[in-house]
């Protein structure tokens, strides 16, 4: 992997074909056809577009693709290939923490990144605090909190 490409879901993507002013969100959705990553506010305030960049949750609407040479990007489409991602996805389904589903990819990806970023000893309130950047308008968060608790238990 060199500076001329980034790796999306394990596949190398040449940067040469991407305009320099393009956001990662648009590269994913319209160049690579990975429209599981959702476009919400496009200003970094809703979390619907969160992907992992080298394992860290990242707002793809506020990130230029060309700022990520050599980086590894994980989107919702490949999250189930990650053992933690699989657990998180299953937890959201099992707890019914999904209604319209538009915020769900962002939640699943962000929680996957968070569970891997924090030590297993991190207290639940810290997890909940760090999930405040993802907005959901349908569920009222009750089922989402239950999914977070379930995923945390399953990954400890």
């Amino acid at each position: 992997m060199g500076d001329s490409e980034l790796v999306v879901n394990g596949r190398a993507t040449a940067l040469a074909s991407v305009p320099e002013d393009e956001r990662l969100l648009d590269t994913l959705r319209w160049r690579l056809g990975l429209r599981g990553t959702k476009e919400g506010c496009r200003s970094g305030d809703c979390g619907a577009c969160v992907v992992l960049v080298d394992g860290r949750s990242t707002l793809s609407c506020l990130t230029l693709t060309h700022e990520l040479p050599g980086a590894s990007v994980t989107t919702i489409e490949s999250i189930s290939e990650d053992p933690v991602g699989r657990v998180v996805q299953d937890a959201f389904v099992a707890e019914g923490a999904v209604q319209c589903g538009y915020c769900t990819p962002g939640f699943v990806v962000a929680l996957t990144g968070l569970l891997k970023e924090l030590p297993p000893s991190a207290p639940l309130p810290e997890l909940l605090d760090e999930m405040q950047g993802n907005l959901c308008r349908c569920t009222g968060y009750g089922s989402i909190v239950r999914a977070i608790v379930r995923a945390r238990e399953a990954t400890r």
Partner: protein
Amino acid sequence: MIRSDLLAKASGATEFGTDLAEPEMLWAALVLAPIAHGRIRRVDLSKARAMPGVHAVVGAEETARLLGPGAGDPERPLFPSTEVRYRGQPLAAVAASSLAEARAAARAVQMEFDPLPIAGDLEEVVAEWPGSEAGSDPRMIAHVRASNGDLGEEFRLAEFVHAETYRTNGVAQVALEPHACVAKVDVGRWFVRTSTQTPFGIREDASSILGVPEASLVVEGSWVGGGFGGKTAALVEPYALLLSAATGRWVRLSLSYTEEFVLGRSTLPAVVRLESAVRAGRVTARRVRLLLDTGASLPGRDFATGYAIGFLLGPYRSDAFDIEGYAVRTNKPPFGPHRAPFAPQCSFVADSHMDSIARRLGVDPVAFRLAHVWRAGDVTPLGQAVGPFGLAECLEKAGALLAIWRRELPTADGFGLGVGCGYWSTNAGAGGEALLRLSPNELTIDQGEREIGSGSVVRGLVAVAERVLKIPSDAVRVGYSDTSRAPFDSGVFGSRTVGALGQAVEKAARRLATELGRRLGTSDPATLARDDDQLVAISGAVRRPVRELLTSEELRAGGLEFPGQHAAPPGRIDDSRVGAGTFYPYTDFTGAAHVALVHVDRATGAVRVLRYAAFHDAGVVIDPATFRAQVEGGVAMGLGSALTEETLWGPDGRLLNPSLLDYRIPTLGEVPPIEVHAVPGHPGAGPFGAKGLGEPPIIPVPAAVANAVADATGARVREMPLTPERVARTLNLLASGGTGRG
């Protein structure tokens, strides 16, 4: 029981409106008016047309040419040609090879206006209550009034009159998915695939706006990333269709989130004046005055004022009343329906008022409400008989829980408890149909609604079929097709999917059960079970595979089909009580009482909701998991309306906070655990006695929170949302001996 749509959604595989794409499609952008009111001198599209990548730029003139003279709805032109009525009103639209090119061209459109005076703030537009001349005042687009009993006598006999003025602010739906569609016009066939709550509604609306016969217009719904009332009227669709007609290409139009806030049809501010005559511990008469900002809504199209105003009397008896409201036209975008349109605001006003009277009388607020609340057999102020209604029981249970929480309340300063009540009714819409098709291994419910998230379609309709036929839920599939093929249905709004379309499913399922019973040679209806991957029909001791019960013709056609229809019998109000405008009867009566435990920081005015419980009469609960999910979601949305959400309008008609940073919906950090309780035993008009539940959970929330704040501090905040600054201001007034008492 896991909903069939969840895994795909949690995998990013579900295609929403914003995800729609077609080969070689063009990208569209709207040109929005930069002023709120003015005469149009010039909208010059020539420079935009010369921009790179541009395929079409259409304004008022081109629209007339494309659609033919006189086409469309003259009251609702796609682009105004003479006058701008709100900031953000579309004046032209662009289609280009890329979104960046479309937006650049939209910016290149040159516009000139003669500014006209801007009607901005509601209370500046109508500084005094309108007099008799209001009927001819062009600023008043609707006037409603109803009354009953001898108001003057009751006010004369009153021990005191409790008079208050409340204010409410605009709230936006904030579905996370903005409006988006793709459209293609092909020799006489106008096709649009769009994220909507109402595919048939969009067909009707777009047909009228474009002047295209409904028979030539086909609407296909995509998965919907949240609706909440915002996706019930045509918005992006006519523009995308028009641009496709101009270019012959697929056109995609998706609003930016800023545009979503401006054009998304939200609720607007209101002022309510209440006067209650109180005698012997009872409210005996009420006078209510409402001014509702309806923005640039059209005269005769205001549904909100007449529907909403009924809720201002609350679910409470009084012998005499006089209620009057005006819809006021301002230079804001037109008013739109937001989950239980204006009912949370009405509940905030009506139930804060009841709470305030109880405190003035020094009696328990719950007991005071129980002495007034409607019960089955009562008559509403507008003369409709109240059907089965469990609000009194919800209130009793809420009161009992409140007493327990009160005992556990920390002794430190600033904690308080409040109750809020709300009621609602299922809106049956224009009816609906479903078609059930039984194949040897699957039951399909063919219908015309798309799932918007609540589960009412993918889970609610399945649950109805399950109840009739005892069929395992994973053997039931909900089918959807576009408006050219699907059975007609009004759409997902008014808490009606299970309540109304569910009845169509129930009827079809019962017919199917009877027919299967007949084919089994019994007189009883059959049920269905699964044996390996085959369905078997059972009646008593008789049991046969479905495959053996179908004719060869039915097998060839895909199964045994039964349609079901539903049209709700409208309730009746007493027309003699209506003085002006339209008041609406209810289909059934659903009620809820909520309890909130809050902490108020007296120094900053910040309110935190720490515990919350909701008691709902939803009739017969068809699916407990969906019930819980709906209540949790509705309460959270209500907490936003109660505490942080409001659209802020500048004097120039500009929306000052069109972003998810400055328009603050609750995050995970603002929503406490919510206890959810069903109060059964009061059947509604839906299948098996179900009542609609999409809207009711949001209704009592602002009242419950405001009443808890009053309990915690003694201060009555009479404007929602209860932001820290508003609460602090009320507390300051109270401390300085002013008028903040609750």
